[in-house]
């Protein structure tokens, strides 16, 4: 019954000194799903990803991992406050993704190098493998970070605003890449993003994070930019729940034949409900992808 879930959050509250970043969040991440986290700046997207990655401790509530080891979570941070003059090549950085699985004391072998190079070519950077990582462009560094996460052979990939600063075409390419990787490596993906025009086309679910988590189903018609703007206004900041008149789903409608297209009236297919337990209920419904877990992974 739970085998389709990877992670679930129960009543997770995260408080920093005087702000509550997340309040009573309930969310289940299903194996094989892809979920976009959207929401205003400061809404708690990063905090939510950090909680799942084990980098932030909930002040209250708990996070459960279902047969998912820490090393099977790949985390790609929003921006790392890293000194890019650090003397490592792109491949060195990717190989760091192998360290945890390798364990202490043991050194990298040729197998690790093969995996590292394979992941670099997955993101199209094999030719820059030996370049100092600091000499790469912003988008390339981002892809190195993804290759690093992939090198740890994760089952769950957490991406925090991976395309901020990229132009529309680059964003589209990026999400196409992520979709391909998801298929090839049977990943489960959670992606925080501001790309309202792009990201909904590539994910199954959209969750709005503004202190709490609100889950939407996401047929592409609903989430095309025009519709979205009609619904929410042009400002991202307008996506605050409570004020906007949008309606609710109780169920996760997903026709088996074509999961990306909705048959119903788009207006009626998303929710205003703060899906406290819906998120978990939804996870029990959609488990057709859970079989992928056992699939052989590409090296």
């Amino acid at each position, binding site marked *: 019954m739970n085998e389709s879930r990877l992670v679930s959050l129960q009543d997770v509250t995260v408080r920093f000194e005087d702000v509550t970043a997340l309040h009573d969040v309930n969310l289940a991440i299903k194996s094989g799903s892809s979920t976009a986290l959207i929401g205003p700046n400061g809404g708690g997207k990063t905090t939510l990803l950090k909680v799942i990655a084990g980098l932030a401790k909930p002040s209250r509530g708990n996070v459960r991992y279902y047969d998912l080891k820490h090393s099977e979570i790949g985390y790609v941070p929003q921006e790392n406050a890293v000194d890019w003059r650090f003397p490592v090549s792109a491949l*060195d*950085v990717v190989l*760091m993704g192998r360290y945890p699985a390798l364990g*202490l004391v043991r050194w990298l072998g040729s197998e690790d190098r093969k995996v590292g190079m394979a992941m670099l070519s997955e993101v199209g950077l094999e030719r820059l493998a030996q370049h100092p990582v600091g000499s790469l462009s912003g988008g390339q560094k981002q892809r190195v970070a993804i290759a690093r996460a992939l090198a740890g052979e994760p089952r769950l990939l957490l991406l925090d605003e991976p395309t901020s600063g990229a132009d529309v075409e680059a964003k589209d390419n990026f999400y196409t890449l992520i979709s391909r990787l998801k298929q090839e490596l049977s990943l489960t993906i959670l992606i925080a993003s501001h790309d309202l025009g792009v990201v909904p086309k590539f994910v199954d679910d959209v969750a709005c994070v503004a202190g709490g988590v609100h889950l939407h189903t996401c047929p592409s018609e609903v989430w095309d930019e025009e519709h979205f703007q009609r619904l929410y206004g042009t400002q991202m900041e307008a996506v605050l729940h409570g004020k906007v008149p949008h309606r609710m789903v109780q169920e996760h409608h997903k026709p088996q034949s074509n999961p990306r297209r909705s048959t119903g009236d788009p207006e009626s297919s998303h929710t205003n409900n703060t899906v406290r337990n819906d998120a978990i209920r939804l996870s029990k419904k959609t488990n057709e992808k859970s079989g992928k877990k056992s699939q052989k992974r590409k090296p």
Partner: protein
Amino acid sequence: MFESAFMIRALLGGVMVSFLLSLLGFFVVLRKMSFIGVGIAHAAFGGVALGQLVGVPVLISATLFSVATGLGIGAVTRKGKIKEDTAIGIFFAAGMALGVIFLALKPGYSADLVSYLFGSILAITPVDLWVILGVSLVILVLILLFFKELLASSFDAELARASGIPEAGMFYLLLALVSVGIVISIKIVGIVLVSALLVLPAATALQWSRRWFFVLVLSLFFGLLYTVGGLIISYWLDFPSGATIVILGTVVFTCSLLASPLRYTAIFSK
């Protein structure tokens, strides 16, 4: 010059110490913790004075003092309550102040203490050499065992932690090793100057390469160059050895900085 036994001992000790400090300095500089060496070394002064006061071997009391200081600075800054430079400034002064008090409590004049402050190659005994060798080997083995974790934690601590590398453990391990490394080096280079030998080799090496392996090898090379070169120059010119080593290093570093194709200026800015 090689006829004199003390000079040979100084060179042997200098080679080992520079190798050790360059290796540790590689991580210290990459982590931009260069200032911590100053704090640890000066805190060791309290340990040296305490050892002389109560008659405990100075090596033991100084090691206790500097390891406690190194880990203390690390813990205080990691908890995020105090900034690293503030913590270093406080620990540094407290260690020195304790040393001054211990010194005042001890009857008579401690000529020996001055040699700890500025280093004295004349004071190196064969026993010192064996201690330096033994401790260096232990530190070398530990660094080799945890090299990749130390590297990944130095590059991006949060990402290291996210992927399950014991990043906090690596941080404290490095601080402990640096503290011990500094203690066994102060007899040769002195408390006041030891941190220069920790920082200068890696800072120079970073001017010449963006590959960690070459940076590491170059750090060891520059460390050796400064120490051996400095000792030889000080012998011929009859200059104080520690100071000569540091000045040589500073000159080579400055030239490297000016000539560098890379200009690794990150060492100046946090």
